[in-house]
């Protein structure tokens, strides 16, 4: 019970050739820079673009694309969320959400009732009569999510769903999106260039560069063992789930992280690898975040070395090649890691 795709598309000078499989209830993030071909992959899955070669199969036997086969977008059981929501400007929020049900032949009254129900679920129960122009960016993106999910599609495609939102709205919409994705039973593919989105929302990540998959795995695996410089720069972040209380976050895996601002409730503590400092002895003074860890592996990339650290609080650290040499570390060695509280970002989850 999966979405399986193996496809090749020529787009201008770029050849996009990827292979992916998404199980029911799973969220796959396709992560990569602009122009890497991510959206092309999504358009093929949606049926908006016909692949030059390859196949797209749902549930093992429904052929969406294959040699001589092309099911057009409107005959695929899918929902799609676009970067700039693309709500139809001439229709109200309710009419937008009901659009797909109406197009598939549901009577108006039932379609509107179902649309109203979904608008309620995304917290827009009162705004059904508004036109998209009268909704804020976050509200519009929520309505767009409701529009994509109302038909209970087999496949959900999300194309940069958060990137047009401002930073504050993004946090709240991301948290809601996380909740809806957790409830969604089909296969979801999320295209994004933002590693935080990928890590926070997806169970697995494909990193795409120049039309090719350069790395695949869970977010943590990809972050810890980047296979290319690009991946390392892109996905060094460590996301630590926990519960905020005051200026500290009690991590789900044990231990606490001190943060600069007061936080409450379920959050991610996000630590960038370059803000982690390593010492052979416990550092002097009284930094609040100090943990004794063990070096698992060290991967040089560029002028720095990425260190994968295990222990109570698993971390990833980037240290300069010179420092790494001075420390004289080998895999398995014990090491002290410290992070300033002000360097820890906190995202609601």
């Amino acid at each position, binding site marked *: 019970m999966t979405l399986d795709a193996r496809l090749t598309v020529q787009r201008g000078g770029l050849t996009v050739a990827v292979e992916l499989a998404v199980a029911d209830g799973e969220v796959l993030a396709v992560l990569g820079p602009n122009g890497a071909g991510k959206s092309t992959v999504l*358009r093929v899955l*949606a*049926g*908006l673009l016909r692949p030059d070669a390859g196949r797209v199969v749902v549930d093992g036997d429904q052929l969406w694309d294959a040699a001589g086969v092309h099911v*057009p*977008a*409107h*005959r*695929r059981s*899918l*929902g*799609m969320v*676009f970067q700039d929501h*693309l709500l*139809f*400007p*001439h*229709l109200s929020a309710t009419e937008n959400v009901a*659009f*797909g049900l109406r*197009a*598939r032949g549901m009577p108006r009254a039932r379609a509107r009732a179902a649309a109203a129900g979904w608008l309620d679920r995304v917290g827009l129960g009162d705004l059904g009569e508004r*036109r998209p*122009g009268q909704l804020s960016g976050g509200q519009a993106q929520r309505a767009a999510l409701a*529009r*994509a999910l109302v*038909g209970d599609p087999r496949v959900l*495609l999300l194309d940069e769903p958060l990137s047009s939102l401002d930073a504050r709205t993004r946090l709240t919409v991301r948290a809601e999106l996380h909740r809806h994705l957790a409830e969604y039973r089909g296969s979801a593919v999320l295209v994004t260039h933002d590693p935080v989105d990928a890590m926070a929302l997806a169970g697995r990540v494909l990193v795409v560069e120049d039309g090719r998959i350069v790395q695949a795995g869970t977010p943590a695996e990809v972050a810890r063992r980047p296979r290319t410089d690009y991946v390392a720069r892109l996905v060094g972040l460590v996301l630590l789930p926990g519960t905020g209380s005051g200026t500290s976050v009690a991590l789900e895996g044990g231990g606490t992280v001190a943060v600069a601002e007061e936080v409450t409730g379920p959050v991610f503590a996000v630590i960038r690898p370059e803000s982690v400092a390593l010492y052979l002895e416990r550092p002097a003074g009284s930094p609040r975040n100090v943990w004794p860890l063990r070096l698992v592996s060290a991967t040089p990339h560029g002028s720095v070395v990425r260190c994968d650290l295990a222990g109570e609080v698993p971390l990833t650290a980037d240290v300069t090649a010179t420092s790494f040499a001075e420390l004289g570390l080998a895999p398995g060695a014990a090491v002290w890691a410290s992070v300033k509280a002000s360097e820890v970002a906190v995202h609601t989850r």
Partner: protein
Amino acid sequence: MRRPGDGGVPAPLLVPAVLAVAFLVLPLVGLVVRAPWSDLGSRLVEPAVGQALRLSLVAATLATLLSLVLGVPLAWVLARSRMPGRSVLRALVTVPLVLPPVVGGVALFLVLGRQGIVGSWLYETTGYALPFTTAAVVVAETFVAMPFLVISVEGALRAADARFEDAAATLGADRWTTFRRVTLPLVAPGIAAGAVLSWARALGEFGATITFAGNFPGTTQTMPLAVYLALQSDPEAAIVLSLVLLAVSLATLLLLRDRWLGRAVTT
């Protein structure tokens, strides 16, 4: 917040703009000044005036409707399909814009006249001849006016975000449903503008009409034909007719702009 200089028009734009207004409006002022105001009332109630005006309005409106029915789908094909030879097609269908209307009238004869490619067949099988009928006026006006609609709607379609149509497809709408429920409403202002332009062009049409439909009061003599013929015998009557045409078209355009275009643009 009002920045300094906001709302002011720079002199390099203001001077030509004022000249343009003078250039376009002064001839109309000339008509008004030279109109025979003293016996305007008696001239206006002449049945020939009402007859020509009614025919003009009816024919221009029918020509606009015909242009909409045929021209909007054509504009869609030009803007959206990936058919080869599209640019040649676009050039061909906009030829009536540059073709002298009289030539257009002759060309219509060659196709739709009694001896024309299609018309001769029609005449032989049904006995119906299109030229010199009110229908011929509508056909001639449509021939000249439809390119305005096509160009205007095609521009609107190109400017409209085609990804809305992608979104509709992912929601299960086939292309026809998408066209009706998404594309048409999105380009409605462009269609409205194109329809108004076509209507105005049809209302003023002269050359193709007098050639293809001839000139007979009540059936084919529209206002521009009446004006032209009156000019040769009774220039004052021509001015009166021109004023009537001017007033009616101005009133219609203003009304449409407020009621229809204005609203379409603000939403």
